[in-house]
């Protein structure tokens, strides 16, 4: 098993006729992903590389039974594409698009939350279940089927982490890039929960970065709920305050979102934090071997991270 996607997933690509949409569709298909349809408004009826193109997601679903959407629609129409996926009732939308206006995402997020559709992204590399299904722009050769779940706010840093995991002999169950934007669909906790319940995932590697409080929230959740070992890396220890480090979400504001705080909090909640980006694979290995004798370590009483403290951080 795996989470979110596997070899049975039937994919519709929104924005399939765009340059990067088509390129990555081909790459995904070469990996073995079952791409059943494409959607580009106004181009319904044509075939592109043998894939039928429809005007709407609903049509695509009706004719091809697609259940997962991969979105490459450019920013002005991307939020609408997400809404359309939700309206068509798909299981999952993976939105790769970078640069969607915040206002559009506020609404798309609210609608998506009320629908049955899960959203990964936007501004993310996508999701891959190695050996089964690739949905996104990540290079496939670094991945290897295995037991480690990977969840990350970053793109290329995830590739770095995955490569280190593979090189050290740790394959992956599923890798999820949740995206670097301030508003994203699935957050760390949502993905961690799936990994926690996935029998094929034995440990999780989490990649965070400066900005926001999602890593701290995740740390508290891990302490309370996680049955599997977790290792992590947080990028941006040396980032200056008040500067937007590439990602719209990666900014330290008003003393919040600092890497040190996230690292400390994760450590206090029992997560093995890699001190250097060169040590991500090792940190995972360490976490896995440390957890072997006793599957869960209730022995280490997390006095430093009480539930109250977690709350303060949330409402701050």
């Amino acid at each position, binding site marked *: 098993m795996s989470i979110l996607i596997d070899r049975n997933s039937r994919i519709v690509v929104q924005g399939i006729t765009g340059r990067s949409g088509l390129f990555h569709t081909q*790459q995904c298909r070469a990996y073995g992903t079952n791409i059943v349809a494409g959607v580009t408004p106004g181009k319904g009826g044509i075939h592109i590389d043998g894939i039928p193109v429809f005007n709407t997601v609903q049509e695509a679903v009706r004719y091809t039974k697609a259940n997962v959407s991969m979105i490459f629609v450019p920013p002005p129409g991307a939020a609408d594409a997400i809404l359309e996926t939700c309206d068509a009732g798909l299981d999952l939308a993976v939105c790769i698009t970078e640069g969607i206006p915040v206002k559009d995402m506020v609404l798309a997020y609210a609608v998506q939350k009320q629908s049955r559709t899960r959203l990964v992204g936007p501004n993310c590399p996508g999701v891959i279940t190695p050996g089964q299904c690739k949905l996104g*722009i990540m*290079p496939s050769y670094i991945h290897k089927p295995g037991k480690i779940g990977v969840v990350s706010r970053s793109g*290329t840093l995830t*590739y*770095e982490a995955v490569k280190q995991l593979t090189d050290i002999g740790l394959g992956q169950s599923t890798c999820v890039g949740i995206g670097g934007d301030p*508003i994203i669909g699935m957050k760390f906790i949502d993905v961690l929960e799936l990994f926690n319940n996935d029998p094929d995932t034995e440990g999780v590697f989490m990649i965070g970065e400066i900005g926001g409080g999602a890593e701290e929230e995740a740390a508290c959740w891990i302490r309370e709920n996680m049955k599997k070992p977790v290792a992590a890396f947080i*990028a941006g220890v040396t980032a200056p305050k008040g500067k937007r480090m*590439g*990602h719209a979400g990666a900014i330290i504001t008003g003393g919040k979102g600092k890497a040190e705080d996230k690292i400390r909090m994760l450590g206090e909640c029992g997560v093995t934090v890699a001190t250097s980006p060169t040590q991500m694979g090792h940190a995972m290995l360490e976490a896995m071997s440390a957890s072997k004798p006793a599957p869960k370590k209730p022995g280490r009483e997390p006095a430093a991270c009480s539930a109250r403290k977690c709350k303060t951080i949330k409402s701050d």
Partner: protein
Amino acid sequence: MNIHEYQAKEILNSYGIPVPRNRVAITADQVERAAKEMGGHCVIKAQIYAGGRGKGGGVKIVHHPEQANDIAKELFGKKLVTPQTGPDGLRVRRILIEEAIEIAREFYLSITLDRETSRYCLIASAEGGVEIEEVARKSPEKIHMLYIDPFTGLRPFQARKIALALGLSGVVCEDCVELLLNLYKCTLEKDCFLAEINPLVVTKAGWLLAMDAKMSFDDNAVYRHREYQDMVDYSQLDPLEITAGKYDLAYIKLSGNIGCMVNGAGLAMATLDVLKEFGGEPANFLDVGGGATREKVTEAFKIILEDSDVKGVFVNIFGGIMRCDVIAQGIIEAANEVRCALPIVVRMDGSHVEEGKTLLMESGLNVQIGENLGDGADKIVKMLGQGG
């Protein structure tokens, strides 16, 4: 994207939010004339892309137009250093002259994006004029927050609750309700990331007035507001950051001597972290984008070398789908074009890595290959150490 206080006030005013009578000036004579118009007694405010101006000496009360002239002469062209500008400060090119107001009460008011709820959040506090983070730390009960439901928008009854919580009553309370609704409308229509009025005041005469305002726009939405392009004050930005912006590169100048070129924001941050770990000091953050095309690599190289502090360059590209030989070609072309003799360490991963490495080694550049992230960082730090 940031704008000046006077521009923010213009926008607020266009949404029916009252602001003090004001003028913008770019010369000391203009300042004096404006001060005369205000009756001599007025406030002079330096316009820079940072807060904390009061503490930095950028806000002065004057009593005569001549005094305004003197202060303006002192401020224009000066680099104002405030707690928010960093040690270099920002140069003053524009000054706002405003009528002096007799204040009865001050409040803090803002609408910004809340990441945890993924909604716009209205923040109001009965304590204005101060850093809201400070109030949040010392007396969180004084801060009122409302997470706005995107389906209903901000409703009058919700705005009224906030106004009452601030201690307003009667006509001013209803004025405040209208102001809050207008501020929310403005936030949405102008695609604001932050719309802040601090302080919002009640004058002794009983009027609401936005005394100071700060506004920043969502960079992702700038494309649907053509007028924003003309609002940018380039004197407030690092020239290299401006060039980088043109090519859609995320560049931030830092204080060290190792120029960095990385694809992807997360990896770029991690690269800075690893350089520091090995004892190096990065000169910049530069993200050429996850895809790292050849054109972007070339432009990025030029920008990095434009910075005279740079004594060596570390390139870290996790190409993935991009071919490494193509990227190597881009690096070589760019380095030759700008006649770069500085030591370069390239760490690449992706397809066609070996071809890429061979190209680099045979290029005649002062280049070394980093086998992985740690090896690359180690090599560039050592190369610089040997070089002096």
